[in-house]
């Protein structure tokens, strides 16, 4: 633990004092001091699968886009069908570069007369600079710096929020509403990053603590930190930018070609379109896969994946012990000829090859609201 005087001061979310009061272990993450855990990663993970947890994800980047041209302009930067995104709906999409690599993965929310983007904390500067540079003259663009984002996740999330905001019970998965919770006006989406049903709630900084306390006061809810968020999303087969996705990885390699809408496949018009569409037709050289490991030793990001005879196939990009699975799980990239389900692979941990098998993801079935 050495001093690093040159490091910039870590930022705090509006809930920083609350995290401390709740006994969180705080860690630096993407330039912020964030809660890693409160009671413990396993307890928080299991509580999210059984009841409901509340995450502070205010470190994520949010921006407001307005203007007649927003959808068309955005489509020059992302692979998804944004023009076809109805008001009150949101969509997961990808910013790409001219080489077909992924600049970031993000949510696009169509609020009707405005669009909100929610991007990764570690990528917000890059994303927002890119948007300003490429389409800033076509849209009104405002980065939100005075709002908090909370994620209420778990099978009890719907009944909890229905108590605080009754109209939320009618929301479908991947829709957005403006709701009043207590006296607070909140932007609410039915979405999340755990594989469970849940909501993500935007509120202004000044009301963040009040909203968080109101939700945490509900008997089903406990606070959860980044540790549980990571194990939950990995079991759900969801990517973490910077680990499972980066600027040298294409949507096709990442198994995210489903985010490219039919019209976009026909028309192109997004950065790297030729490379990405050709890869869709011809098949990528490597693919993101899930791996179940025999035994109990978790493989971590960076571990080599080989075939059973030691030939290099790729690397693990995320790996942990899956608390709900009850066994080590990993996500990584392998050459396409070993990407089929049930392909036998080995993952090298501490110089020993551990036997594993390619399996379909998610590792734990999604239980989104239907």
């Amino acid at each position, binding site marked *: 633990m050495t001093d690093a005087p040159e490091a910039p001061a870590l930022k705090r979310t509006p809930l920083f004092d609350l995290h401390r009061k709740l006994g969180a272990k705080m860690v630096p993450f993407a330039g912020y001091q964030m809660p*890693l855990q409160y009671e413990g990663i396993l307890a928080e993970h299991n509580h999210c699968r059984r009841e409901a947890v509340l995450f502070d994800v205010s470190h994520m980047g949010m921006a407001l886009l307005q203007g007649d041209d927003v959808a068309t302009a955005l489509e020059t930067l992302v692979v998804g069908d944004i023009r076809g995104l109805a008001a009150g709906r949101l969509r997961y999409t990808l910013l790409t570069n001219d080489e077909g690599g992924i600049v970031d993965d993000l949510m696009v929310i169509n609020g009707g007369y405005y669009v909100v983007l929610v991007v990764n904390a570690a990528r917000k500067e890059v994303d927002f600079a890119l948007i300003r540079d490429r389409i800033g003259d076509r849209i009104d663009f405002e980065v939100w710096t005075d709002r908090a984002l909370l994620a209420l996740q778990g099978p009890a999330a719907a009944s909890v929020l229905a108590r605080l905001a009754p109209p939320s019970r009618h929301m479908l998965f991947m829709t957005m509403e403006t709701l009043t919770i207590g006296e607070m006006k909140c932007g609410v989406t039915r979405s999340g990053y755990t594989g469970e049903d849940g909501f993500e709630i935007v509120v202004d900084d000044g009301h963040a603590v009040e909203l968080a306390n109101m939700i945490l006061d509900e008997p089903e809810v406990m606070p959860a930190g980044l540790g549980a968020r990571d194990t939950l999303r990995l079991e759900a087969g969801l990517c973490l930018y910077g680990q499972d996705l980066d600027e040298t990885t294409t949507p096709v390699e990442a198994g995210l070609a489903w985010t490219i809408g039919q019209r976009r496949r026909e028309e192109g018009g997004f950065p790297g379109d030729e490379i990405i569409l050709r890869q869709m037709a011809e098949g990528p050289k490597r693919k993101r896969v899930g791996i179940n490991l025999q035994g*109990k030793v978790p493989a*971590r990001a960076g571990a080599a994946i080989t075939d059973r005879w030691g030939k290099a196939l790729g690397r693990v990009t995320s790996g942990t012990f899956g608390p709900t699975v009850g066994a080590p799980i990993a996500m990584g990239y392998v050459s396409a000829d070993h990407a089929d389900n049930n392909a036998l692979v080995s993952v090298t941990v*501490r110089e020993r090859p551990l036997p594993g098998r390619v399996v379909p993801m998610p590792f734990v079935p999604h239980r989104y609201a239907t």
Partner: protein
Amino acid sequence: MATTRYTREHEWIRIDGDTATVGITDFAQEQLGDVVFVELPEIGRQVSKGDEAAVVESVKAASEVYAPASGEVTAVNEALADEPALVNSAPNGDGWFFKMRLANPAELDDLMDAAAYKDHVDSLD
């Protein structure tokens, strides 16, 4: 009577004559978080002081456990295979890692007693 000494890397070693039991401290398990797997040394292995003797995997990451002294591993805690969380719940007791026969008890003079270890931990916060 057994005495317990501590390393800067947060192992404890409880010495009883020329044998000793090794584990990690409460501070260490707290830092690691939920332990999901412990890789223990082979019985009969000769370790030198400072050697990597075991690995403890929490949900977050893997961490090495170093031999606090030189000697031969004489027993390992088989209970950790089925219940690695003992490291969290009873780091100073049922969550022990391995036992060893000490090759050179004089090495233990370099280690900290409980009061010195407490000062060490306090200095880390």
